[in-house]
Structure formats: C-alpha cells, structure tokens
C-alpha cells in the first residue's frame, strides 16, 4: 500500500514503541512522523495530506483521550487509532464513542495496525474528498442570487412551478428561467441531484421551515 501522499502520526511516550511502529509503517510504504507527547504533536504543523494518528492512551501530561478531545475541539478530523497497555472496556467504549477508529491492546499484531491505518487513511481521504466537494458546492451555492436561492429552496421542497410563482408572486415563466439558472449554476443534471446537493450542503429547505 505504497502511498507517499499520506502521513501517519505516531504519539507514544515510549521511544522503543515509537521506533518499532515507525519501522513497521515505513516498511508499509507510508510517511511517518513520531511524537513523544500530545503537546509536541499539537505544536507541530501537519502537512495537508490524508493522514491518521496512532495514539497511546497513557501519555504523561495530556493523555491520549485528552488529545482526542482537544483535536475534536479544534475541528481536526484526523482518524485516531488508540493503542494501550491496559485496554479496559470502559476506556475503549469512551474512545470509540468519541470517534476513534480502532482500539488496539499492546502488543498488537502488525497486520491489525496496518489494516487499521489503511482504513483510517481511506476514511480521511473520503472525509477530505467530501470536504472538498462540499466546499465546491458551497462555492456554487454562494454564486446564486437571493431570488434563485428562494426558487431552489421551493423546488427541492417539491413545489410545481405554478405554485412557486404563486408563493413568490411572480409569473410561472419567470420561475422557469430562475430554475434553469439554478440547475445550471449548481451543475445539477436532475432535480434528484439538486435535492442531494441541498442535503449535503445542509441547507434548510422550505419543507423544513
């Protein structure tokens, strides 16, 4: 799984373990960055690449679970793979509920870690892809005039042109023109696609109001 366009961050206070994981991940053809403490990781600037964190739970100072909270608070959506020496159930449940991707107990099988990393990177890629698409849609949506947004909102709510004209106090012809512009600007091929776009953008529709 050679992937030079992804990076794996390893945070563990034990240098031997850091080193071992680093060797393993490198051998799998991935870029690795290692950190001894959570603070060190937070201070460091991360490359804008798909990535994931292999995170020790029992870190001195800021613990792994603390770091998970910290990242979430900063809107950093890096997938997290926890590794722990204790691995009790309440702890893993807490970590998974907070969005952890995997919870591995030391010592772990190399393949389990690599699988988890693979999965994490895919998820991050998907997330990043999703974010990109949303950003593009947002851009398109931002290009709409306010009248076009009104029309779009009513269209996705399932109203007929005639009804929309009545709602907005404009002629059906004018509605048709606005509707054509909306479809064009948003790049939607069909009404169904436009509806999906609205959902992804999480725009409140007329139906919700």
């Amino acid at each position, binding site marked *: 799984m050679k992937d030079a366009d992804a990076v794996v961050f390893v945070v563990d206070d034990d240098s*031997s373990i850091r080193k071992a994981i680093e060797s*393993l991940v490198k051998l799998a053809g991935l870029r690795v960055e290692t950190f001894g403490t959570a603070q060190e990781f937070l201070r460091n600037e991360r490359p804008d690449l798909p990535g994931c964190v292999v995170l020790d739970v029992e870190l001195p100072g800021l613990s792994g679970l603390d770091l998970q909270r910290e990242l979430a608070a900063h809107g950093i959506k890096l997938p997290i793979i926890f590794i722990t020496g204790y691995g009790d159930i309440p702890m893993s449940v807490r970590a998974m509920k907070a969005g952890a991707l995997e919870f591995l107990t030391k010592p772990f099988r190399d393949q389990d870690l690599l699988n988890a990393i693979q999965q994490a990177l895919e998820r991050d890629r998907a997330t990043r892809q999703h974010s990109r698409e949303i950003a593009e849609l947002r851009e398109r949506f931002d290009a709409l005039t306010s009248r076009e947004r009104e029309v779009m909102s009513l269209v996705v709510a399932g109203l007929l042109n005639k009804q929309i004209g009545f709602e907005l106090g404009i002629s059906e012809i004018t509605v048709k023109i606005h509707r054509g512009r909306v479809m064009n600007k948003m790049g939607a091929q069909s009404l169904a696609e436009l509806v999906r776009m609205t959902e992804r953008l999480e725009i409140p529709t007329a139906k919700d109001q």
Partner: protein
Amino acid sequence: MNKFLTKLFLSDFMPHGYCYLWDPRIVWLHAVSDGLIAFAYYLIPLMLIYFVRRRRDLPFHWMFLMFGLFIFGCGTTHLMEVWTVWHATYRLAGVIKAFTALASLATAALLVTLIPQALALPSPEQLRTANANLEKEIRERLLVEEALQRAHGELESKVQQRTAELARANDQLRGEIGERRRAEGALQEAQTLFENFFEFSPDAIVVTDGNGRITKVNSQVEKFFGYTRAELLGLPVETLIPERFRAAHPDHRARYTAHPSVRPMGAGLELYGGRKDGAEFPVDITLSPVGTADGPIFLSVIRDVSEKKRAEEALHKAQAELAHVSRLMTLGELTASISHEVNQPLTAIVTQGQVCLRLLALETPRPDEMRAAVERIVGDANRASEVIQRIRAIAKRSEPQMVSLDINDAIREAILLVQREVLSHGVSLRTELASALPPVLGDRVQLQQVIINLLINGVEAMAPITDRPREILIRSQQHEAGQVHVAVQDSGIGIDSETAERLFSAFFTTKPSGMGMGLSISRSIIRAHGGKLWVSPNPVHGAAFQFTVPTNG
C-alpha cells in the same frame, strides 16, 4: 372514877380570896404574880425542850426533860393558886401539887445521883487546855512525821536512782550482748545469704585466683558447662572456653589482670562458652576483681544468652518477614504499573519482530535495517528483564544486606517502578537529587521500599486535589555530617498535627483500602538503618515525608 372526877372538880370549900379578905390589892397581887410565875414556868420547859431537841449531843439530856417536867408542874401549881382565889377546887390543886412534888423529888433524886457524874465531866476550860495540848501534840507529831517522810522519800529516791543506774547499766550490758549476738547473727546470715546468692544465682559464677585457676564455682556452672564442681576446681579457667578461642585467652587474661576493673568482657564481641561435650553456647560475661588478704581474685559472672539470642533472631526474622509482606502488598498495589513497565518493551519487541519478519520476506534483503531492528529487540528484552529483576529483588524474601550504595540510584530505580502509577494519577514527579552524595550504608531493597511507600502515599494524598497541580518532589541532600537526607514532598491535603502523631503507628490508615502498615514498617526499616523518619507540613500545601540514613564510613 366518875365520882372521883366529880369530887375532884368540886369546889365545896371557901375560895382562897377569902383568906385575902377579897382585898383586891392582895388578891390581884397574888393572882398576877402567880400568873406571871406560871407563864414563866411554862416558857422555861418549852425552851428546855427546844434546846434539848437541837442539842442531841448534850450529856444527860433526859435530865433537862426532867427539869422541864418539874418546872411545868410548878407552873401548874401557881396557875392553880390563881384559880383557887376564886374557885375552891383544893382537891385538884392538892393533886397537882402532889404530882409536882413527885416530879420535884424524882428530879432531885436523879440530880443527886447525877451530880458526881456531871462533876466528872471536864469543864470547858479543861477541855480547851486538853484540846490545845492535843493540837500541839498533833502538830509536833505531824512535823516529825513530815520529817520522817522526807527522810524516807530521800532514801527512796536514792534507792530508785541507784536502781535505775543499775538497770541502765544492765540494759546497756544486755544491749551490748544483744548487739554482738545480732552482729554475729547478721554475719552468719550474710554468709548464708552470700552462699545462697552465689549458689543459686541464675548466672554461672566462676572465681579464679591470680593465676587463672578455678577456686570456686556455683551450681549453674555445672549446669551450663556440664562439668562437676570437683572436676573444675584447680583447673585453668580456659577449660570453660571453646577450643577455638582457648589459645588466645591467657594473653587477654594477663592484660586484664594487669589492669583489673569491673567491666563486661569482650565488649562488642560475641562470646561463647564451651561445654564439656564440646558444644558452644553464647554468653555475656562480667568480670570483677576482688581484693583479698591473699591477693586479688576474679569473679566472672557468666550469663547464658541463648534464649535472648534466639528471641532477637526471631524478632529480627519477624520484622524482615513483615517488611517482606508489606513489599509484596506494595507490589500488589503496583501491579498495573509494573505490568505496564514490562508490557512496553514487550510491545516494542513484538512489533520489531514483526518488522523483521516482513524484512525477511522482502525479495531484496535489507541487512542494515534487520540489524537495527534486532538490536532494538535485544535492548528492549534486556529492559523488560531488568524490570522483572527489580521486582524479583523486591519480592524476594531475603535477609537484609547492608551494603554501601548511592541513595540517588536507589531513588531513581524506585521511581521507575512507580512512575506509571504516578502518571496515571495525573501527578507530575520532579527530582532534585544532590550530586556527589557520599554513599550510605543500607539495604537497597528496604530503602527502596520506604521510598516507594512514601511516593505512593504522596500520590494518594493528592487524589482529592483538583484545584491545583498535583506535584511530587523528591529531594536528596547531605544532612548533618554522616547523614543523607531524603524528602518526598507532595501538594496534597496535608496532615494535621493530631494525625501526624498516629501516622506511624501500625494499623493506622486514612485510606479506605489501606492496611496501615506502610509507614509503620518504613519507620522501623529506617530505624534499623540508624536513621529517622518523620513528617512535616509544607508551607502552603501538602506534607513532606523525610528520612535520614547514615553514610557509610
């Protein structure tokens, strides 16, 4: 009778007034005179009767009564004289006169017989003289008697004095005799007492002469050493010393004989007695020189301390056992931390091993990476092994071994065992270890046990703290000369002085799960090292547990 009485009071004669021719002057002269006489004659017997009644002691007092009767009769005749002036009852008057005559005659007759007797009575003058003589005589007699008595008294007091002197002398003599007898008795008693003390002393007592020959032993010697008294007398005292020490003893003895004093023998050394059968037993010996007319003799009081030694050893063993149990309990508390300490290198080993396998599976070998991975495996395996050895050292049941050690090393090793525990409680641990400390003399495991105890206590004391950092600081420094000082300072809830007093007693605990042995054992360990363990409050928060241990040399 009646006729007689009537006749008696019949006045058939001429009243007497006729004789006076009723000349009133003569009539009244007689009548008044007779009346007055009668009055006087009646008064006199009354006075006499009164007198006689009051003076019962008078001689012949019946004579006075007789006089009274006779005067009374005379008075009545005079009264009758007055009566007969006017009434001629001469018969009655005659009877009364006759009665009076009888009374007068009787009185006169009695008086005749009485006079000689009355004359015989001494006159008052005679009586006075006689009395005076008598009194004089009595006075003289009294004086004589007094003198006599005085003389008598003097004699008596003299006799008494002499008697007392004699008694005193006697007493003194008796006292002296008693004292001498007592002294003799006391001497006898002391002798017996000494013999008893000597004989029945719980210690064996050996008396030797100036040449180290045994001259006297008590029964305990026979019991302790297995020889009979007869066997020992005359033998050199070395007989009672185990074979292996015998050769050196005469020199010791010679030195002691040159400078004798009362002192324990071989201070600081373990001494042994040698039995007849060759067995040895531990003893304490006190030597005392005694001066006698025949030169000095030496008293060796020998105490069998086998029991004491055994008790000491048992105590020692029990303490070591307790410390060991406490260490095991501490390890129990630290299980999570310790397993983590082992698990970390094992995890690294497993992962590196897997890396190696992957490297081996590659078509093009990468020997450099292989070597690096295997070296790391070896390093981590050693690390895991070290942790296990440390734990084994602590868990091992072994006699304390006092060695020269660097306290800072001991502290660092102890920290390795508890650091995970410390971290998992959100506590930050700092050290300020003085460099170039002199080595201390101690048992590494026990000192680490104390340090670990203090660290865990500190961590637990800070569990309730949420409003400030949880910090532990371990300091080591040179204390006074010959002492190294270690302090474990926390920022916990602190300890009030009342609790501080009880903190070190066994079974005292403030923790719900604690046994209350940790500090008690820690203190006994530090004491056994010749140091001190105490607690003092920090200026702001928490407490500082600190101890000292003597340096080696």
